[in-house]
């Protein structure tokens, strides 16, 4: 109150105190200083995330006319997505492939993470680096190496033939959903191992000792202590694999063949050869919404299951 009065009467002297006061509040308010420091990162990330998504949503209501867009809003694209059986079939196949991949990768990675968390005592860091190192190498190259291995004349088929074990190449190895699942499981293994390892490493060892003292054998100990406590890691790992793999189009393109086409190949085609960006946007949004809903449902179900156990 007094400051407004003094501004009116003594404009020059008080302006400085005003500024000093703002400066002092600024220094005192940790939140304000924190946000000032954070602002460049937060603004860049928020803008780079929000702006593209908004325009993606808007465009999904447009219509493609040759090389131009009809910008009147319509639900036509979404209607086509629901009516055209191809889209539905591809979406279901993508979800099925990604779901299977997530399940298998987590199931196979769990013992590995368990081993490093509980049985490796020396050179733990080396093991962790070894487990995660392939993840940092080119995704394209990791997928590509499976094309080399699984191919009709690839390493496995030509190797077995050279050894005289088979006459005809094994055809299921390439250009099939099986090939996609193997390749994806390999490419995303590190995404499963890390959260699993972290959740297992965090488990208080005295709980296991307590269970042992109370007469639980190894199996009961695992089922009643280790597994329930590592469930958050299992959830994180499966979602970290499921969500991005639904949108993968490199793997199906390289090893999937005609039966292995996934929804992301279609989205990519709409932004390329087919040249129908609005339809591609609608497909992308439908895919995201369905993946989001499944993830939320999955988290909800696992929470409920965890409560039941506890």
């Amino acid at each position, binding site marked *: 109150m007094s400051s407004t009065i003094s501004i009116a009467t003594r404009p020059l002297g008080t302006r400085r105190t005003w500024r000093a006061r703002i400066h002092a509040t600024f220094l005192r308010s*940790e*939140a304000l200083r*924190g*946000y000032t420091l954070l*602002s460049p*990162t*937060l603004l*860049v*990330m*928020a803008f*780079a*995330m929000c702006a*593209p998504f908004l*325009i993606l949503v808007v*465009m999904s209501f447009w219509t493609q006319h040759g090389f131009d867009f009809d910008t009147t809003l319509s639900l036509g694209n979404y209607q086509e997505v629901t009516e055209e059986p191809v889209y539905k079939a591809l979406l279901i196949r993508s979800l099925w492939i990604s779901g299977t991949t997530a399940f298998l990768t987590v199931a*196979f990675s769990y*013992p*590995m993470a368990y*081993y490093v968390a*509980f*049985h490796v005592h020396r050179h733990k*860091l080396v093991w962790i*680096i070894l*487990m995660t*190192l392939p993840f*940092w*190498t*080119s*995704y*394209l190259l*990791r997928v*590509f*190496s499976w094309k*080399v*291995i699984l*191919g009709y*004349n*690839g*390493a496995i088929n*030509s190797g077995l033939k*050279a050894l005289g074990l088979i006459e005809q190449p094994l055809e299921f190895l390439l250009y099939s959903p099986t090939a996609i699942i193997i390749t994806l499981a*390999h490419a995303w*293994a590190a995404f499963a191992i890390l959260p699993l390892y972290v959740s297992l490493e965090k488990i208080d060892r005295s709980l*296991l*000792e307590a269970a*042992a*003292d109370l007469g639980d054998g190894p199996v009961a100990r695992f089922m009643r202590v280790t597994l329930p406590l590592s469930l958050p890691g299992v959830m994180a790992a499966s979602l*970290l694999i499921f*969500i*991005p793999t*639904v*949108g993968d*189009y*490199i793997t199906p393109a390289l090893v999937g063949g005609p039966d292995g086409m996934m929804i992301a190949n279609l*989205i*990519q085609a709409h*932004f390329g050869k087919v040249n129908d960006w609005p339809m591609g*946007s609608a497909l992308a949004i439908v*895919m*995201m919404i369905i993946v989001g809903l499944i993830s939320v449902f999955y988290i909800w179900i696992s929470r409920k299951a965890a409560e039941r156990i506890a």
Partner: protein
Amino acid sequence: MKSVAYIERQNPPLRVYAFLFLAFLYVPVLFLPLFSINDSIYVSFPLKAFTTKWYVQMLDSEPMHAALLNSLRVGIATAVFATILGVFGAKAVTRYRIPGRKPVVFTIMLPLVIPGIILGVALLILVSRLGIQLSLYTVTLGHVLISVPFSMATLMARFEGFDKSMEEAAADLGDNAWWTFWRVTFPIVFPGILASLLLCFTISFDEFIMAFFLSGTDPTLPIYMWGQLRFPQKLPSVLALGSVILVVSFIVVFLSQWLRGRGAPEKIHEGR
């Protein structure tokens, strides 16, 4: 005490499984260098003879040089920008008690869990609606977006690891915020910054999906390789190029992980 010992006890089947798992992770990738020195344009067994001609062919290719240069440019720019943003973000969320810390960190980490193709097409639409030509700049933008989460995570661990009182001591001794940062904070987090730079560089250097949508006429190295895959006779030299990239990224990543490990938080209090 038997109950303690069981945790320490070896589990041979599990050990075998762990080694098989590592083999599953590494062996497939090793086929690339193996076939890259095989004297045949078909990638199949039995191996013919040793040759280095695919490497010579690859090194002689002019477009490959251009693509390599493009990738280096984008990679360095991405590493620098993402690390700068990472330093700001990591210092803010670890050094200040700010309200809404969780949603803020969540927003910044979001690109980690969004499928690459969605980010790619969304940025493509934005850029084209704004009338910006696709170029190495747009690729860099996409790469910064996906690198910042990694840079933040690396640097947050580093900032959390060291004692806030050292910064306070510098401030008490008369350094202003700027000098406190350069004389105290920066030297301590430097290994983290270096690790972040290396990590972001590798991410950008190997990245394919964003570059696929956002690159114009100048391809990055992965885009160039993807283009070469259409020609079966070029396959061996693509293998040679892939092997070189693998070796280089293994070294860079190992270095960045080692730097992270070397500056492990416990060690900072003693010695330095």
